């Protein structure tokens, strides 16, 4: 939490004579961080912006900062901050101002109150106004300003009720009834409370939301004459829940939810009373009412061994220095036994100091982290297998970038519009930022097509890829499966152009990873194929019996839905399975053949339903002897019959033991021609 404190206020308590920036720098190195400050022309003062960590609510006040400074800078406090004037001189109070306090809930640990009569509510004197304004608050009137002043000074929220407005002269601290109403002071906003909210009530109803906000019905006004000061301690978790649930976050609730020690209430109430008597006049007309509902102790003891210091810090610190640091921080050393210290922790540090590590931290920070040397790790380097998924992810990324693709990084969330898939289950965020961030993608292409849509008109062609996770829901009560995917999108003026480029990228990837493209099989799409793909212009990729991805064109439906102008080819690969294949693949080498290869070109006209992959596998299967490579180099649709397609390819034959003769190759050639003619009803084109 951040607090603003005027430097002059600190100097009021602290015997120091250094400029504000030096103070800030030294404090930041060893304690609360003061990275910013501003100069106020009107107050002629530097206002420090101090960041106090959430475990140190005790430091979130002028006094808290002064206590820290005392230890860090080695300066002295000008006065003991915990000695306050006794308010109750022996006088017996009349029953003219009765008040009964009932604490019904354990969520209130302590409730103190005091009545002062004859106060005069008016504008605050200048010194008080200045202090309030230096903290960035608005001056309201002397009473309200005093409670804010004490909140800043002691870090303890207090509240003042108008005595006259407390019905039945009863203060009841209890849980709210379901649907009970509460109207906040100032904003007049109405809240419907629930049973777990703690409230301060009178005979008729809620007069304050405990620890969060005072109620309009009991607030002080300009004609208030008699006041009840409240200084209490509440359960931090309850305050936090109440404040969050009602969406009412106040300076008081932020302090209370960080667990202020119950002892702090007694200093605050006396300080408020002292200031009220000085600033607003009047006299105390009640005893100091003090209801302690929960037992609390005012100190705790911790045992700590000096040997812990080198174990955590890496250096030893002289015993006398250690003692000095602890004492300056307000710790009391009860006993020391060789290297063991028995330490008493002051009440205001009881929350954050729990065990010996906490003591080491205190010693280390005051000693100064900058005084600890910097040492490179000299311990054993762990034996760890390389993470293959990460390794191949990086390798694939490098290959694709090198090939000319541009990498995207999309949000894992997808807007509903892009949730195109063949399954209907998604991981849904319960508290999304907006509807665009509600669902986690189940396919990487859901994210990529959005990028294509948004960039289509900016450049001639898009060649995009991404490697990221998708999130597949499993059962209700388990984590989803997170699968790493590769997706590629290529657009173009013709579907063939876009598609064959994406095929080329896939083939390049296979070759660069030293895989044999014959291990992958193309099968028609089925119900497991995403609806983003065109069913007739796509193919599932299989390795053995596992589907590893899909390659194809975008479906007409999705293309129209996104109003895409260009044709779009898509590729999607399951990296997890791919990594399995890759990790089993060792580099291999075949001796270079001593005998020359022989090549023949083929050109066939086939029905467009015939797949190239089927032709290739038939050739290998039925006429594959001595074939080293089959290379497709031209595919086009016939102009006069669009059901027909022309395929031109080259076959390379090689025998490792001899030079193939023309005669042998001619036989091979003829057998392929025959095979394709009969099996695929193809026509051999004339050269």
């Amino acid at each position, binding site marked *: 939490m951040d607090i603003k404190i005027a430097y002059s206020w600190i100097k009021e308590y602290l015997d120091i004579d250094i400029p504000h920036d030096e103070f800030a720098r030294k404090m930041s190195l060893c304690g609360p961080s003061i990275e910013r400050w501003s100069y106020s022309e009107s107050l002629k003062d530097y206002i420090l912006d101090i960041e106090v960590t959430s475990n140190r609510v005790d430091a979130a006040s002028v006094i808290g900062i002064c206590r820290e400074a005392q230890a860090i800078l080695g300066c002295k406090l000008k006065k003991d901050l915990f000695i306050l004037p006794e308010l109750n001189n022996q006088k017996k109070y009349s029953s003219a101002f009765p008040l009964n306090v009932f604490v019904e809930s354990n969520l209130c640990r302590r409730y103190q109150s005091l009545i002062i009569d004859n106060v005069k509510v008016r504008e605050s004197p200048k010194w008080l106004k200045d202090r309030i304004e230096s903290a960035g608050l608005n001056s309201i009137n002397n009473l309200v300003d005093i409670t804010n002043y004490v909140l800043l000074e002691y870090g303890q929220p207090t509240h003042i009720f108008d005595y006259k407005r407390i019905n039945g002269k009863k203060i009841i601290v209890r849980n709210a009834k379901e649907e009970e109403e509460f109207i906040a002071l100032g904003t007049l906003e109405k809240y419907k409370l629930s049973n777990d909210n703690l409230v301060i009530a009178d005979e008729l109803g809620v007069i304050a939301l405990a620890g969060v906000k005072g109620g309009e019905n009991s607030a002080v006004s300009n004609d208030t004459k008699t006041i009840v000061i409240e200084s209490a301690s509440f359960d931090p978790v309850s305050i936090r829940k109440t404040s969050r649930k009602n969406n009412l976050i106040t300076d008081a609730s932020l302090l209370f939810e960080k667990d202020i020690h119950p002892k702090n209430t007694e200093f605050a109430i006396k300080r408020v009373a002292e200031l009220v008597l000085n600033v607003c006049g009047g006299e105390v007309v009640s005893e100091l009412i003090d209801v302690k509902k929960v037992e609390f102790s005012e100190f705790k003891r911790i045992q700590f061994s000096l040997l812990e210091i080198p174990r955590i*810090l890496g250096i030893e610190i002289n015993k006398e220095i250690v003692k000095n640091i602890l004492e300056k921080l307000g710790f009391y050393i009860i006993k020391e036994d060789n290297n063991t210290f028995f330490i008493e922790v002051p009440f205001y540090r009881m929350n954050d100091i729990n065990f010996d590590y906490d003591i080491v931290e205190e010693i280390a920070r005051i000693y100064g982290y900058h005084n600890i040397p910097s040492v490179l790790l000299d311990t054993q380097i*762990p034996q*760890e297998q390389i993470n293959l*998924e990460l390794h191949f992810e990086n390798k694939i990324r490098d290959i694709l970038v090198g090939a000319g693709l541009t990498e995207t990084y999309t949000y894992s969330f997808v807007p509903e519009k892009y949730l195109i898939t063949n399954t209907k289950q998604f991981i849904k965020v319960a*508290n999304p930022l907006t509807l665009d961030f509600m669902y986690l993608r189940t396919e990487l292409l859901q994210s990529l097509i959005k*990028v294509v849509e948004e960039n289509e008109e900016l450049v001639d062609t898009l060649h995009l890829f991404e490697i990221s996770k998708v*999130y597949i829901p499993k059962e209700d009560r388990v984590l989803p499966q997170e699968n790493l995917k590769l997706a590629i999108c290529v657009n173009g003026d013709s579907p063939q152009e876009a598609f064959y480029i994406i095929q080329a990228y896939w083939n390049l990837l296979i070759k660069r990873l030293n895989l044999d493209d014959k291990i992958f099989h193309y099968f028609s799409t089925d119900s497991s194929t995403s609806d983003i793909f065109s069913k007739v212009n796509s193919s599932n990729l299989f390795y053995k019996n596992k589907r590893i991805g899909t390659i194809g064109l975008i479906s007409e439906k999705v293309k129209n839905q996104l109003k895409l102008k260009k044709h779009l080819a898509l590729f999607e690969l399951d990296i997890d399975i791919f990594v399995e294949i890759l990790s089993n693949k060792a580099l291999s080498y075949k001796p270079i053949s001593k005998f020359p290869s022989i090549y023949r070109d083929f050109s066939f006209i086939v029905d467009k339903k015939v797949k190239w992959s089927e032709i290739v596998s038939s050739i290998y299967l039925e006429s594959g002897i001595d074939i080293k490579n089959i290379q497709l180099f031209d595919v086009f649709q016939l102009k006069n019959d669009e059901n027909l397609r022309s395929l031109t390819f080259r076959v390379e034959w090689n025998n490792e033991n001899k030079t193939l003769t023309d005669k042998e190759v001619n036989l091979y050639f003829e057998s392929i021609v025959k095979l394709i003619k009969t099996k695929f009803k193809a026509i051999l084109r004339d050269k």
Partner: protein
Amino acid sequence: MISKEEFISKIDNIRQNFLEEISKNFDQFLLKQKYLSRSSELNELLSQIKDVESQYRAECGKIANDLKSFIEEEIKKSTNTLEEKILVDPTANPKKFRIGHKHFTSQAIEEISKIFERIGFYRVRYPEVEWDWYAFESLNMPKDHPARDEWETFFIDTEDVDTVFGKRILTPHTSSGQVREMQRRKPPIRMINISKCYRRQIDISHTPMFHQFEGLVIDKNITIAHLKGVLDYFVKNFFGPQRKSRIRPYHFRFTEPSFEVDVSCGICLGKGCRLCKEGWLEIGGAGMVHPNVLKAGNIDSTVYSGFAFGFGIERNFMMKSGISVGDIRLIYQNDIRFLEQF
């Protein structure tokens, strides 16, 4: 008068120089200038032939003229390669390869992992949809603890769905990998966990998805001094050899002591300037692993100790490279005009 010996030795000298220079591919034009022009040493010498004793004049003249024709011949030979026509304009570049672009964040991740790899850190990655237990509870943050406010967390479940692990959430930090790593392997641990993280914030300096890298070292005798050593090493390798790191007190529930880590400003090197104010820029959080966290990971805190640090990738990479994108959301907007700049 010039003696015959003197004349011949001068000739020899010229020949020697010439052979040396032509062997070093001296420019032909310059060679011609030096050895064949009217003012060349050789021609000077020839014009002095009258000063040679008359009985040697013819002999010396021949030697000089022989050298002259030898030089002419040699120069001609060296120019006698094919005469080339101008075929290209060396300054024109009309052919283009498609140029791929690695995303800003990938580049940052790559660089950071390599730096840590060199000092024995191995890289891991853990679930992004994570249990509350790993993200908070096991890190010493009980339910309803105000410390949790610092993480604006996305929830999948509104109620606990597992009695131990609680709700499913989107991990708000890579620290959720700490206990997972302790469960995966025994010390020594020296991991770097780089992953996507999610927080409910979107504005000019926040994106709901971002990346962090988390270092975790657990072994016997690991101290704050080692943490400082690793931070110094990282800062010098990532930001530059002149930069320094420092730690300041902070508070995290899962480390004790806890620190904020600063790097000295690259402009003023820590003296303080207009850009950095106090000479230092904050880069992330760190600390010694809390015994309760070691306990959650089944590691005996009386035997082992360790440190952890967690830094944001995007902000630090921008800080390092001096890139200011203005609106950080641009990084994940995927405007091709942004992507193609990296």
